[in-house]
C-alpha cells in the first residue's frame, strides 16, 4: 500500500492564541513495501506528520493519498483506515488499559468482523510474534509487566490487526541494547514479509542500518528525502553536528583529518570495519 503526501501543511492554535505551523508544504511519497525512517529534532513536526498519515488529524491544506485515495475526502471510510495503518506511539506502555494482556491485544480486533476463535488465534499469533509464551502471559495484568514487556504487548496489539502499513514513533527510545536490536530485527522481518514500515527515531545507527529511505524534517519543512545512504552523506556535508551523523561516519571523518582518508560512503559499523581491515592489513605480520 503506497502513500502520497501532497503539499501538506498543518497549523494549530496554542491556548495563548499563538499560531504554530507544525508542518509547512510537505510533499513526499512512500512506496509499498518500503522501510522509511523519519529524522528530525524534537519539535520538527515528526509526530504531527505520522498523525496525519494515520488519519488522526486532517491537514490544514494539502492532501494525503493512500493507494490513490484521498483519506480526508468526504465519503472516505475512515474506520477502514484503522485496519490499514497501524500506529505505535511513543511510550505505548502507558496506553495499556485492559485487565488482561489477551484483552488488551484483542481490543483492536473488536470491529474487524473476525469470530471469537479467529480473534484468539490472531492474538496468540501477535503475542508469540513479539516473543511471548501465549498461555503464560494471556491472563496476566499488563500493568504487572516490566517496561520492556509492556511495550511488546502494545506492539502485539498493533500488529494483531495485520495492517499493511506500520508506523512506529520512537519505538526504541528507552530500550536497552538487546531490546533495541530485537525490536529492529522484528521490524525488518515484518518489512521483508511485505509490510510497509515507517519509523521515527533519534537513533542514527538504527536509521542508518535498517531503513531504506529517509525523510528529514526541520522546523516543519521537509529538508530532504531519498535513499538512506544518500541522505546521510548530504547531511554530513551540511555539518549538522551529532544530528544526522553516525558514529562510524564521525570516526571516518576524524581519520581523514589525520591524513587517513578512507573510501567514501562509510555509514555503518560494518562499513567501517571492512574498510579498516583492508586499509590496515599487510603490515606488522606476526
Amino acid at each position, binding site marked *: 500500500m503506497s502513500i502520497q503526501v501532497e503539499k501538506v501543511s498543518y497549523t494549530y492554535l496554542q491556548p495563548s492564541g499563538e499560531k504554530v505551523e507544525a508542518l509547512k508544504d510537505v510533499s513526499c511519497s512512500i512506496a509499498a513495501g518500503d522501510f522509511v525512517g523519519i529524522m528530525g529534532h524534537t519539535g520538527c513536526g515528526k509526530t504531527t506528520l505520522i498523525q496525519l498519515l494515520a488519519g488522526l488529524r486532517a491537514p490544514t491544506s494539502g492532501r494525503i493519498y493512500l493507494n490513490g485515495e484521498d483519506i480526508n475526502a468526504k465519503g472516505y471510510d475512515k474506520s477502514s483506515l484503522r485496519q490499514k495503518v497501524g500506529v505505535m506511539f511513543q511510550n505505548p506502555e502507558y496506553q495499556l488499559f485492559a485487565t488482561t494482556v489477551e484483552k488488551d491485544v484483542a481490543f483492536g480486533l473488536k470491529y474487524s468482523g473476525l469470530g471469537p476463535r479467529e480473534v484468539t488465534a490472531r492474538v496468540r499469533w501477535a503475542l508469540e510474534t513479539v516473543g511471548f509464551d501465549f498461555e503464560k502471559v494471556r491472563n496476566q495484568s499488563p500493568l504487572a509487566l516490566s517496561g*520492556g514487556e509492556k511495550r511488546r504487548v502494545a506492539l502485539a496489539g498493533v500488529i494483531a490487526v495485520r495492517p499493511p502499513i506500520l508506523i512506529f514513533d520512537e519505538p526504541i*527510545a528507552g530500550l*536497552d541494547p538487546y531490546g533495541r536490536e530485537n525490536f529492529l530485527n522484528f521490524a525488518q522481518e515484518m518489512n521483508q514479509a511485505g509490510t510497509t514500515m515507517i519509523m521515527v527515531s533519534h537513533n542514527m545507527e538504527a536509521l542508518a542500518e535498517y531503513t531504506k529511505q529517509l525523510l528529514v524534517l526541520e522546523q516543519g519543512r521537509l529538508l530532504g528525502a531519498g535513499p538512506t545512504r544518500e541522505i546521510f552523506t548530504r547531511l554530513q556535508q551540511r555539518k549538522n553536528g*551529532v544530528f544526522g551523523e553516525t558514529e562510524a561516519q564521525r*570516526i571516518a571523518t*576524524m581519520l581523514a583529518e589525520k591524513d587517513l582518508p578512507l573510501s567514501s560512503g562509510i555509514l555503518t559499523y560494518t562499513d567501517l570495519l571492512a574498510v579498516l581491515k583492508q586499509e*590496515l592489513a599487510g603490515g*606488522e605480520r606476526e
Partner: protein
Amino acid sequence: MLVEGKKISFSYELGGSSYALRDVDINIARGEFVAILGCNGSGKSTLVKHLNALLQLQHGELRVAQIDLRNEEEIWRLRRLCGMVFQNPDNQFVSAVVEEEIAFGLENYEVPRDEIPARVRSALAMVEMDGYEKRAPHTLSGGQKQRVALAGVLALEPEIIIFDEATAMLDPGGRQEVVKIMHKLHRAGKTIIAITHYVEETVGADKIILMHKGRVLSCGTPQAILTDLDLMREAEMIPPLPVRLYHDLKQAGIALNNCPLTDEELVEAICQFRLKR
C-alpha cells in the same frame, strides 16, 4: 564514604519471593562520578531510589551522608541532599513558567522569599539556561527541559545528583547537552550518579557499577568494565564501538596498541598503528 550500603535486598511484591535487588553492596565516595549500567530490569533504578528514600529499605543497611535510611525522621533532610532527575521531562513539571518551576522546590523547603530569585538565577546559569526565566517549559526542547528539571534540583543545593536515565528520551544533541552539564557539575565538586544503558555515557565516569538481574555483576573503572567482552555479554550490554572495533580488528590479525574507549582514542590508536608499519 558518602554512600554506604550493605546487603540491600528489595522485592516489589509483599512477602514476595522474586527480588528486584539481591544482596547489593554499594560504596560511593564524595565527589565521585559513578555510572550505573545495566539492561532493563537489572535493578539499577530500584537501587538508586533507595538513596533518597523513594523506596523504603526492606533488607540490609544503607547510610547516605551519615543519615541512616531506617530513620524516617531524617528523610526530608535526605531528599534535599540527594536530588534526582527522571527519564521523562514532561512528567516532572508542575509550573507554567520556568522560574516558578525552579522556585517551587525552594518554597517547599521554606527558603526565605527574598533569597529565592538569586537562587533561581544561579541554578539556571549553572545549567546554561539563563534568559529562559519567563519561558513555558513545554516550548523547550527535550535537552532544555531536562536542564530546567536539573536546575530545580540544583537550586536546593544538593550534594548528590542522581540522573535516572535522564537522557533516554532525548535526541543526540539533547543527550550531549545533558552529559556535558553532568561533567561540569562533577568538576564543581558534586557527587554524580548516572543511570544509563548508553555505554557511551559511562566512558567518562570514575567508576561503573554493572548490574544484572538485581545483583552487582562488577564494579570498576570504565576501562576494566567496558573492555571485558565476556562481562559485557553476561550483563546483556553491547560495548562501545571503539572496543568492538578493536576486538574485531584483532581477530583479523590487526592488533592496535591499547583497547580504546572513545572515538578520539580509537583514531589515535589507528594512527599509531600506521606509523609503526
